[in-house]
């Protein structure tokens, strides 16, 4: 029996799809296994966590030590050593970005105008408790693919449930000195490509005020603030840029 050529076309397409599908499954489960082992090693020997803190070290450095079989990731979730999470807070009252790079984390909340906060913290076993100026706080649980928690800025608590993203989505920061004042701007580029950003005209102040940041050009990483061109750099979990 001769198979008609259009059917052969479909069969070839399905076969290609199936092979790509299974190699994707293999690739993802291999990544999960590597992360789970790295997490297990990090929990087994807390000293290893500090050693991977150097900017040149990669997360897989911890995986060279043997994994303890008793400890694994909490609740079956896989805790990635590097992750960028962005998303809107509930009620659409702003967006939040969390970047975890080994034993450091940077987060940014902003509503695109006067409310914003930069926060720092130390990840511990998939949990983060972060602080920033003006008594800003952020607590989150994160795992492969998503993070959820609460960020409190200017006394207002926002609940969020956000997803892991890759460049060009993520967090961007620009620090420049303009007429003696330190101008610090931050942009969150969401998974749908939309962005929100705020700018502190005098960020070294104890209680910096903020305003809407000029639009960030993602391809050139610049923004025009009046006669000043701000150059932004990504705060990126994969490369450690911005840490």
């Amino acid at each position, binding site marked *: 029996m001769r198979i008609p050529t259009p059917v052969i076309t479909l069969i070839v*397409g399905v076969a290609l799809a199936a092979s790509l599908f299974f190699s994707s499954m293999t690739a993802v489960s291999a990544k999960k296994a590597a992360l789970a082992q790295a997490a297990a090693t990090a929990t087994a020997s807390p000293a290893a966590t500090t050693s991977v803190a150097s900017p040149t070290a990669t997360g897989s450095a911890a995986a060279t030590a043997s994994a303890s079989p008793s400890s694994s990731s909490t609740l079956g979730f896989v805790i990635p050593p590097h992750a960028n999470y962005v998303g809107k807070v509930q009620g659409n009252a702003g967006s939040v970005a969390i970047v975890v790079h080994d034993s450091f984390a940077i987060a940014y909340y902003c509503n695109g105008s006067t409310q914003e906060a930069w926060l720092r913290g130390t990840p511990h076993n998939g949990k983060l408790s972060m602080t920033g100026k003006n008594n800003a706080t952020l607590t989150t649980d994160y795992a492969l693919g998503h993070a959820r928690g609460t960020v409190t800025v200017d006394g207002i608590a926002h609940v969020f449930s956000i997803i892991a993203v890759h460049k060009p989505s993520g967090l961007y920061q620009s620090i420049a000195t303009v007429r003696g004042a330190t101008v610090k701007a931050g942009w969150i580029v969401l998974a749908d490509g939309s962005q929100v950003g705020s700018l502190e005209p005098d960020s070294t102040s104890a209680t910096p005020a903020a305003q809407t940041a000029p639009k960030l050009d*993602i391809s050139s990483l610049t923004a025009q603030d009046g006669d000043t061109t701000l150059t932004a750099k990504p705060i990126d979990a994969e490369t450690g840029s911005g840490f």
Partner: protein
Amino acid sequence: MAAQWGPPAPSRPAPIQPDRSARLLVVPALVGCLVALTLGIYGRLHSPTGVAVDVIGFSNGATAKAWLATAAIVFAVVQVGSSLVMYGKVRGVSAPSWISGLHRWSGRIAFILTVPVVVHCVYALGFQTFNARVLVHSIAGCLFFGAFTVKMLALTRRGMPGWVLPVLGGLAFALLVVLWFTSAFWFFQTFGVSK
């Protein structure tokens, strides 16, 4: 009063031609529906991983998809052009002997180029509804592979009405253009053209 028109003279009803029946389309259409539903339901139920196997030579999955989809659109334009020539719709151009070969191979290449894209979409991103662009893209993606399946299966059946193939081909092309505008075009516009 208007003139009294008598009923038209009774004429023999046109003979029914069961062989040129659109009924032949039923099985291909059902298979196409099955393909579209499978993609949509799997994309909705499977929890997206955010990553899939990478296509070599590109900086990331999204860029690779945008370029593959753009290449598919180019071949799809060849599809429409060659079919217009085959149907004699281009004035002054008589179909050369190689036109059906061009039509078939451009279609095969366009289809194969879309396969890595759909695998990445369904596996890494899933069927999403968080804004109008994404919703339209998700629905059009499921419908495109359904329509393409119907077109391929319709080609294997003789005796279908003449409108079937142009309508199915046009539908597949229109859906592909919608897919491209809601993904690759949006991507290049938002993030710039890069490799």
